[in-house]
């Protein structure tokens, strides 16, 4: 069975599962969380009840400054944390209750890169995305190899296949990491500050790819970022976070209000409307052209 056939059959099976849920894929309902430093003491950080939902092919941006609760929310969505109250459901299943393997087949997480203990080639790295589908020793099948090859082609990393991970640039590395997530064939693609160490060209390239992937592969994409302008340009929905609270959920145009952004980011900002109704943010003082 070829990789593409397999992919289609999975999509068909999932599609028939719940026709009504085809509209809403990810639903976060009143999900909250609290970190305790030790046993019974007062929590050191709390995430207040947060609600939003996302469909397939949709890009959601969780936006906020540092320590606003973005990463906690992402962990709740990923099922790595169990919400204190409320629910996080992916196609009707609570993400934190899925077993680790099933979860990895449905949710892919892209972190900022970790230090590799031993050198690895890009293709070895991407093939790791097939791990949730394998058995004990997980000798890779031809199908796994095809899926990994396709994933690398989709992110424009085919030429990096035989390169060492420690020898390629930050932007190239980010593409390989993304390819590994694609090799998981997930429904939900989560990215934690993916643009952090990238130059502006690589940032735009990555986000354009994400938009394309969301459309082609019918992913629901959730991106955590503090980059105001990139979120405005690429998100279908923005979840604005501030000090552990979700302040507003909506399209960029709905969320990007000057007073709101100034309060959250604690900087003098100007917002105006660009083409296609997408807002643009400027630091006040630096006047917009024209």
């Amino acid at each position, binding site marked *: 069975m070829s990789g593409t056939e397999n992919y289609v059959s999975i999509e068909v099976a999932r599609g028939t599962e719940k026709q009504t849920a085809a509209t809403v894929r990810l639903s976060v309902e009143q999900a909250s969380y609290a970190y305790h430093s030790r046993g019974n003491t007062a929590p050191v950080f709390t995430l207040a009840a947060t609600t939003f939902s996302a469909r397939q092919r949709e890009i959601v941006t969780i936006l906020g400054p540092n320590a606003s609760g973005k990463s906690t929310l992402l962990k709740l969505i990923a099922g790595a944390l169990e919400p204190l109250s409320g629910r996080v459901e992916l196609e009707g299943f609570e993400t934190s209750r899925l077993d680790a393997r099933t979860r*990895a087949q449905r949710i892919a*997480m892209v972190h900022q890169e970790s*230090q590799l203990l031993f050198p*690895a080639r890009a293709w070895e790295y991407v093939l790791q995305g097939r*791990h949730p589908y394998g058995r004990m020793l997980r*000798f*890779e099948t031809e199908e796994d190899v095809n899926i990994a090859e396709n994933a690398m082609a989709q992110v424009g990393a085919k030429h990096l296949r035989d390169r060492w991970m420690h020898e390629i640039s930050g932007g190239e590395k980010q593409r390989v990491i993304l390819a590994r997530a694609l090799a998981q064939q997930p429904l939900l693609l989560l990215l934690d500050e993916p643009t952090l160490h990238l130059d502006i060209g690589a940032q735009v390239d990555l986000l354009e790819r994400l938009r394309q992937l969301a459309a082609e592969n019918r992913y629901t994409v959730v991106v955590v970022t503090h980059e105001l302008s990139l979120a405005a340009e690429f998100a279908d929905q923005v979840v604005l976070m501030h000090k552990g609270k979700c302040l507003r959920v909506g399209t960029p145009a709905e969320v990007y209000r000057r007073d709101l952004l100034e309060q959250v980011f604690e900087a003098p900002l100007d917002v105006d409307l660009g083409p296609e109704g997408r807002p643009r943010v400027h630091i006040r003082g630096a006047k917009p052209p024209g």
Partner: protein
Amino acid sequence: MRTLTLNRLLWICGALLAVLFVVVVLALKVGAVPISMTDLAWNLVRVIVGRDTQLSSEYGLIIFGLRLPRIVLGIFVGAALSVSGAGFQALLRNPLADPYVLGVSSGGSFGAILALIFLPYMPLVTPLAAFVAATATVAMVFFLGRRQGQLDNTTLLLAGVITNSFFSAVIIFLMTTLKGGEDRGMLYWLMGDLSTPLAASVRWMFGLGLIIGIGAIYTTAADLNLITMGEREAMHLGVDVTRVKLVVYVSASLLTGLAVSVSGAIGFVGLLVPHAMRLLFGSDYRVLIPTSAIGGAIAVVVADTLARKVVAPTELPVGAVLAIFGAPFFLYLLRRRLA
């Protein structure tokens, strides 16, 4: 891209086993009493076809009474220590981890000596005590090696080195003051030595422990590949990180405990062999575990043959030979990897 197949794995292991066979034959030949290749070949054939009654008694004693048991011991110890090293490297996320460097070997030796002093007539207790002490030492080094709740590579190695000196000092103290049921020398425990053959009564236990330890680590091989690329990522790729680490922790401690209880604290095998195997066959733990086992056996048998031959008719502790050759070879491998 060349993915791993069962076929490729078997070919690699087959080739290494062939090398091991050659090494064993040479080790049987080399020693204080020279034995010609033709004599050795003829007599081995006689044994294989079951006509061993034709062997001369002197020959039989040297080959089958002295050299072969020692070689078998070397194979067991080498396999145990290098798989244990490969396991600790992934577990502690530190490429320089090794049971000796981490102080686990001397911790295990300490346990074995205590057992020998206080329960001298119970041979099975010695490896058990070494296992328990090794497990406790890993836990201790692990907690000493943390800074602000995070495992820190340098702190971990320092904690290991200090633990090693501490237990070495305690061993020296015990050996000088209480000479209970223990008649092997201090050097045996501190440097490692294969001159005491495995007692027949513990042979089965050692073999079984070796198979269980290596087998258990091998079941986690695919997961370890992901863990070496980041624990957080491994978790999101469906690996039960806590379970895998527990399995590797207990198994690697078991292997170290078994090895030190019969050969003392032999160093550098667990560091050297897995790295050599990585350079030869890549970092994939599915290949690394079996190749490290065979490679460790080869390394220890070769080192012990040198230990017997170089200063014949006396001999060196095998740990000294491994340390002399181990450190520069490791540096060479490191340089070549960086080039």
